[in-house]
């Protein structure tokens, strides 16, 4: 599994520019699904048909990562930028970004006169080593993702964009493990989640599922001075009850708990105060769906060094397989 995670997390794919992610994921899934297609916005969708006795289920894991977009090139060839998704200024200084063509830049900021304050995004810039606007290889409107090498250490995986490439891995591995199932399951590797769960919205509009389950990261309450949260890294797959955008379907949460207990999968119940997932868009699409989320507890979210526990990831895969393999009664 580590190779798959490494391949996906290190790849380029800020919201709106997920072509390279599709190139990596499609070969992983095409032999395990009945149909695979890409929709108008770029969502990669794989359908695994059921035996007709079940429901229509949509699984969503987003391929896009947070990133930056160039807004202006100075005369000396430095790049000013804006955020794509939730990029926080205090994670930027000294970091590196990569553009679609592989060009790498260093992120720095205007002179810091007050060390107790963090410069806003507008006062940061990217340095690609150009000497002038004319010889700069990058243009206004170009998008970049952050770069950092993937590390597996003990039970932990550390990388950028575990949000939500680790969710994609859970989806891919679960799909590979499914055999005959009752439900028609649409695995949607979605686009543009970080800028407002937009890919999931259009995919759900087209699919109109009865049930929607997102596979995404969630925070933890186990780091120093963390906001109270009953989720810890390493304590199991998290079953989301509520987040900033959605209250999960109570019956679906009950079912997830039941399956986890039956399969002896360690789990935790998650209430996340800020943030949301693709599930919120699936819940409200068309006539509405019973929506929920299997979350991978993740430390240091939206930084270049997110961290998850392998056991939690494996638990999420097992839980998803168990849910999709049995009846879904809400």
């Amino acid at each position: 599994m580590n190779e798959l995670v490494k391949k996906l997390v290190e790849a380029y794919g800020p919201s709106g520019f997920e072509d390279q992610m599709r190139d990596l994921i499609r070969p992983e899934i095409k032999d395990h699904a009945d149909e695979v297609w890409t929709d108008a916005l770029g969502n990669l969708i794989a359908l695994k048909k059921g035996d007709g006795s079940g429901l229509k289920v949509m699984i969503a894991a987003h391929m896009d990562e947070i990133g930056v977009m160039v807004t202006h090139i100075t005369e000396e060839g430095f790049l000013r930028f804006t955020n794509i998704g939730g990029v926080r200024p205090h994670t930027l200084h000294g970091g590196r970004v990569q553009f679609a063509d592989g060009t790498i830049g260093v992120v720095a900021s205007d002179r810091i006169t007050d060390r107790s304050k963090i410069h806003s995004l507008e006062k940061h810039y990217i340095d690609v080593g150009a000497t002038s606007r004319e010889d700069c290889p990058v243009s206004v409107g170009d998008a970049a993702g952050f770069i950092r090498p993937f590390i597996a250490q003990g039970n932990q995986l550390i990388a950028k964009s575990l949000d939500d490439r680790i969710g994609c891995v859970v989806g891919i591995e679960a799909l590979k493990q499914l055999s005959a199932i009752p439900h028609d399951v649409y695995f949607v590797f979605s686009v543009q989640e970080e800028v407002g769960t937009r890919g999931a919205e259009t995919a759900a509009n087209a699919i109109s599922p009865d049930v929607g389950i997102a596979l995404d990261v969630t925070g933890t309450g186990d780091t120093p001075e963390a906001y109270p949260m009953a989720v810890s890294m390493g304590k199991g797959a998290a079953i989301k009850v509520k987040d900033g955008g959605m209250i999960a379907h109570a019956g679906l949460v009950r079912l997830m708990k039941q399956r986890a207990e039956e399969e002896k999968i360690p789990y935790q119940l998650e209430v996340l105060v800020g943030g949301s997932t693709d599930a919120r868009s699936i819940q409200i699409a068309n006539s509405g769906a019973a929506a929920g989320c299997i979350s991978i507890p993740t430390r240091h979210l939206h930084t270049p060094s997110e961290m998850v526990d392998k056991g939690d990831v494996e638990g999420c895969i097992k839980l998803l397989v168990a849910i999709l393999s049995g009846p879904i009664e809400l």
Partner: protein
Amino acid sequence: MNELLKQLTEAVGVSGAENEVRLLLRDLIADHVDEWEVDTMGNLIALKKGTGDSDLRVLVDAHMDEVGLIITEVCSDGSLKFDPIGGFDDRVLLGKVVQVGPKKVMGVIGAKPVHLLNQSERDRVVKMDAMRIDIGAKKALGSKIKVGDRAAFVTEYEELGQTAVAKAFDNRAGCAALVELLRAEPYPFDLYAAFTVQEEVGLRGAQVAAYHVKPDIALVLECTPAYDLPNKEDVSPNVALGKGPAVYVMDSGTIQDPRLVAHITKTADSHNIPYQIRRPGGGGTNTAVIQRSHGGVPAATIAIPGRYAHTPCMMISLQDYANLVKLGQAALRSLTKEIVQRKN
């Protein structure tokens, strides 16, 4: 004098009460389209059938509403309390003339004379809830003005050399451009033109128009704020008058489809039409809700730069306007299915 721009900017149509501008647009396009209809929200949606060479369904959207005010109370002394419809800076309202309600009653937003202000009052911004519209009446006038009536600025369209001044270039300039696109020869594909309502209060009209039309590709024509005034601070230059129509790559609600953006810029280059890349980020357009309708629609946005947006007097470059129309035409006529096909 550009009669089209004059007529459209002088018409009144504050979000949710676009009747006058809707009727005007209907009259302007009726002879140039095959069908038109008005939906329950008030969107004017017209179909200009294509030559049959392409089976694409293309939607071009231009919102017809403008920012303005809504009357919240008719006071016993005859003055009117109001709230903003759309985003406003409180500072642009004082000392302005407005027209209220379907009968266009004239009113002024007055201010306490400076002579009578103390020092702290001179420095304080007067908030909207302390302002009143004075229509010169001595007491509440009953049926002439009702709570819920809208008020719009009163500005006459004028041309000053290369530029024009009027209210509501956002987005009557976009509407005018769309009218001109409809007055041209039929396109290879069926063109659905949507003059939509309530963009300024949450992209509302475009949402239902897009649902109804179900296009394969969409283009939104807008007016985007120009940031080209002299400024001491070194701020990244944004959109400027005279540099051509602004092509969007990303705004607060949309990441425009990169393939359509590339098509538009290539078309501009090959037709020698000047254009600028609108600074990514910030601002919202109807493109956001159109892109997310049904199973998703590849969509892009082209806008004319406008100074002093959401104030009584906006300014555009007439050259930019002409180039917007040219670019819109050229980009549409060379639109093909292949452009939005996916290879992976």
